[in-house]
């Protein structure tokens, strides 16, 4: 299993049977391949669909069937289509059990920054602000450090926020960290990674309980 697969596999364990889930573009979609047997999850695509199925076989793509990243998708039995206002009513109204998004930065107050780097990259927030505000559980899935090796889990985000205090769980290639009222709790470390290595790669203060689990075996 490579890093991304390991993160995808760990994300998938967060879903309960019957959950309605919205996965962000990129890394979060890795979770689709690892939903445990017996767990049935309905995936939403915020452009107006519940019941997203796997990618179509080559040559069977339908130009009117895309996900929010523009990739071709299929519909599972029980799927539904609706307009964008209804789609965001589902999201903002608290009807989505979990959303999984990438991050540029996340901090120990559960703040998330993932939509712009002033002066460098301004793609816009798309649906991310609504998702992070409205979903019952917000899971950040990302590599623990940026490509230069700098920590992304900070004491305080310095990029423009996507939402304030909404993140519940952070899953990286090194650790699983829960956002609690007392601060960030290191719940699990990746197989082959030590607690010390996680602490070194994290700017935020981490609460380390006596028992820290392991994932990615």
């Amino acid at each position, binding site marked *: 299993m490579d890093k991304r697969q390991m993160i995808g596999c760990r994300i998938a364990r967060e879903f309960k049977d019957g959950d309605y889930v919205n996965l962000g573009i990129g890394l979060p979609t890795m979770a689709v391949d690892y939903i445990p047997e017996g767990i049935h999850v309905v995936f939403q*695509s*915020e*452009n*107006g*669909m519940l019941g997203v199925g796997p990618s179509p076989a080559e040559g069977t793509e*339908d*130009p*009117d*069937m*895309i*996900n*929010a990243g*523009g990739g071709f*998708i299929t*519909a599972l039995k029980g799927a539904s*289509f*609706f*307009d*964008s*206002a209804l789609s*965001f*009513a589902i*999201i*903002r109204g608290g009807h989505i059990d979990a959303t999984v998004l990438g991050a540029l930065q996340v901090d120990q107050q559960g703040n998330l920054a993932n939509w712009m780097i002033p002066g460098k990259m*301004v*793609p*816009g*927030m*798309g*649906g*991310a*602000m*609504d998702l992070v*505000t*409205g979903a019952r559980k917000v899971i950040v899935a990302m590599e623990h450090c940026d490509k230069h090796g700098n920590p992304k889990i900070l004491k305080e985000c310095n990029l*423009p*926020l*996507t*939402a*304030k*205090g909404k993140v519940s769980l952070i899953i990286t290639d090194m650790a699983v960290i829960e956002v609690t009222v007392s601060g960030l709790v290191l719940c699990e470390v990746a197989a082959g990674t030590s607690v010390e290595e996680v602490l070194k790669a994290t700017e935020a203060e981490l609460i380390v309980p006596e028992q820290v689990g392991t994932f990615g075996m």
Partner: protein
Amino acid sequence: MAQMISAADAAAMIKPGTRLAIGGFLAVGAPEGIIDAIVERKIADLHMIVIASDWENRGVGKLVVANLIKSAQVSHLGTNKEIQAQMNAGKIDIELVPQGTLMERVRAAGAGLGGILTPTGVGTVVEEGKQIINLNGKDYILEHAIEVDVAIVKAWKADKMGNLIFRKTARNSNPIMAMAGKITIAEVDEIVEVGELDPEMIACPGVFVNYLVKSTEVANG
């Protein structure tokens, strides 16, 4: 009854300065024929209200590449380098609006509401300069309705009364944009007689639709 017109007639209704709402999501469900006709006529200084700026060669991205957009209210620019370049060069004035907020603001205009209260954006730059209203202990941003002069949308089928049905994820913002247009023009793959569409399937009633344009490129059936 909705009046049947050509894409060129539709473009002729759009003037420089028009507040133009355009349906579609990453060019799926975009009225490509009307967009092409606007590009052909070089109708400039437009204010564009869209979910995303699509690609340089598909959807509303073509309007950007043709330098026809003066300002825009949009949630995502990530797929279109040209709009980012024009924004950075100060040629286009962009208001980034969270997608759910954008849809409700447009819907509010169509529904006769002055605005909406949303928790989205509280504690972020989105709230800057806006009124925060606390209801039952929770903060909401007062977001104003987005008024639309002309809405151009894409549907799968229309009857001659302008009732619209959509196909799969090509529905997206189209019924919402259609509600808000003072003039709404729908480009459709197929126009059928009144009575041929199942009333239960209609996702945009003809009351919102003034004109129909028959699409020349039918991708689906």
